């Protein structure tokens, strides 16, 4: 997942009568569950919204390397270190697929990266929270990837073909991530008192930020309606959040940890768990750049990009020289 608060580039859902023939044909395809492909006609607003959504998702995968990378060099066993490296490598790979999917909409990866660095594009709020102890790594896999999967499973049915196909591939890897996260946190929760304390601390800190990953409550989510009509959003924020809570609470109980919210209770009538809303003012603050790690995350990414400029320039210069030598040899041979 990792796309939240994506501003839909439209003034609201148009009625059939207000649509041009092209728009009506486009909407009919979507309603019939026919995928939209890069060369198909599409409304400009659909294209722009998707670039925002897929771009934000790609940036999240890339920035998401940082909180987990924070523990690679301190992983406690060779096996845990290898699992974590493999996971972070997968995330970078997801970033690549998603940038490629966005590129089919006519924007380059470099342009998107520049927009991220200039603060014009966002990444998921969750990655602005720190990873403070080893149990956080288990909790990130279990809760953060777990939340992401709930959204991404739905997005496998999204209307834009390249995005949908990227999601299908990504979901397979994400479910491995969530399982390894839960297995890591099980070791902690069932381990020594210190390990259990780390696990509890991780769950307490990451619970509400994980709930925020689904975006604001439906009543405050102004962008959903058009995106749902276009099937680039499949379920509402609140539906997805409830699904996550229902799935995760029994897992917390199984670990023997305290619930991170005293208001979590099974509601027989609704057939769902009740729970407290996250503190939305905190969420909006994080989006504005005031999360615990926003400044450091961007400093790391911009720094990596700037420090790497000479490498990219060097390799490009070499590729040009090589081509020129090849061309010269060809001419000489003729």
């Amino acid at each position, binding site marked *: 997942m990792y796309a939240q608060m994506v501003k839909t580039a439209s003034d609201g859902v148009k009625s059939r009568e207000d649509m041009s023939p092209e728009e009506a044909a486009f909407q009919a395809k979507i309603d019939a569950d026919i995928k939209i492909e890069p060369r198909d006609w599409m409304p400009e607003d659909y294209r722009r919204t998707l670039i925002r959504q897929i771009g934000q998702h790609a940036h999240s995968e*890339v920035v998401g*390397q*940082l909180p*987990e*990378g924070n523990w*690679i*060099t*301190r*992983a*406690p*066993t*060779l*096996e*845990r*270190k*290898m699992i974590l*490296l*493999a996971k*972070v*490598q997968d995330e*970078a*790979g997801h*970033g*690549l697929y998603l*940038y490629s999917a966005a590129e089919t909409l006519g924007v380059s990866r470099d342009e998107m990266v520049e927009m991220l660095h200039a603060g014009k594009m966002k990444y998921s709020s969750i990655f602005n929270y720190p990873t403070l102890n*080893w149990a956080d790594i288990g909790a990130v896999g279990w809760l953060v990837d777990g939340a992401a999967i709930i959204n991404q499973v739905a997005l496998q049915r999204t209307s834009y073909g390249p995005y949908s196909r990227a999601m299908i591939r990504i979901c397979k890897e994400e479910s491995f991530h969530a399982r390894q996260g839960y297995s*890591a946190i099980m*070791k902690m929760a069932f*381990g*020594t008192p*210190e*390990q259990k304390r780390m696990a509890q601390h991780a769950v307490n800190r990451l619970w509400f930020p994980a709930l925020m990953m689904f975006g604001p409550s439906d009543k405050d989510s102004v962008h959903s309606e058009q995106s749902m009509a276009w099937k680039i959003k499949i379920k509402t924020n609140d539906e997805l959040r409830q699904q996550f809570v229902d799935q995760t609470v029994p897992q917390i109980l199984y670990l023997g940890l305290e619930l991170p919210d005293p208001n979590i209770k099974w509601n027989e009538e609704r057939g769902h768990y009740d729970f407290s809303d996250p503190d939305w003012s905190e969420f909006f603050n994080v989006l504005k750049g005031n999360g615990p790690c926003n400044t450091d995350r961007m400093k*790391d*990414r911009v*720094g*990596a*990009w700037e*420090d*790497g*400029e*000479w*490498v*990219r*320039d*060097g*390799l*490009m*210069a*070499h*590729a040009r*020289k090589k081509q020129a030598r090849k061309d010269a040899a060809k001419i000489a041979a003729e």
Partner: protein
Amino acid sequence: MADVDNKALFEFLVRMGDNTLILGHRVSEWCGHSPILEEDIALANTALDLLGQTKMWLDYAGKVQGEGKSADDLAFLRDAWDLRNVLLVELPNGDFGQTLMRQFLFDAYHSIILGHLLKSSDDEVRAIAQKASKEVAYHLERSADTVVGLGDGTPESHRRMQAALDYLWPYVGEMFETDDIDRAMASAGVAPEPSGLRADYDALVGRVLADATLTIPEGKFAHKGGRNGYMHTEHLGHLLCEMQWLQRAYPGCEW
């Protein structure tokens, strides 16, 4: 297989395993900070291969040692003087050029020695070499290509790669030092004497660095003290502080 002194075999195995352990750790430090996304993936992949090899070498070392130690015990509970990696791999990453030059200088040695270990008289050594040599062939291809690309790139990339080579070259010689342990391994047919690998190394490295338009420093001096544990660099202790912290702070846990 001829009679092998287990102490010497253990030393040989931890030399192999500590090289990959420490280099894998260094490479993993790049996570999320490389010049381009494809390089983040490639660096993570290299680190992952090296750690997988570490596990195989140190598992076997633990068995040979016969004190019931696992690969994790050896990786996370030995102090610097017991580590047997060459100094080259514990040197800091520096810029991306220095990291890739260090990788290339090690990959070239690593691919040559693994080629010989495919014919080892020791079944387990041979099996590890079979798996590792495929991975390392790819590491070498990638690091050599990058060294050539950056050496023969822009004036700035050339200058940085030459500086990296000048800094790292005095650490190359240690990989080819031969001592009693190496002689014991060679006479048992387990592993070649490192000094005998130098000619192939010079030919391989000379070819790539010439393509990279880089000049091999003239000095013959070689820093040493890593593979016998006599004198590591100051850098290793800091690396171990980070790598071993959880195991040291919370001993006896399962993770």
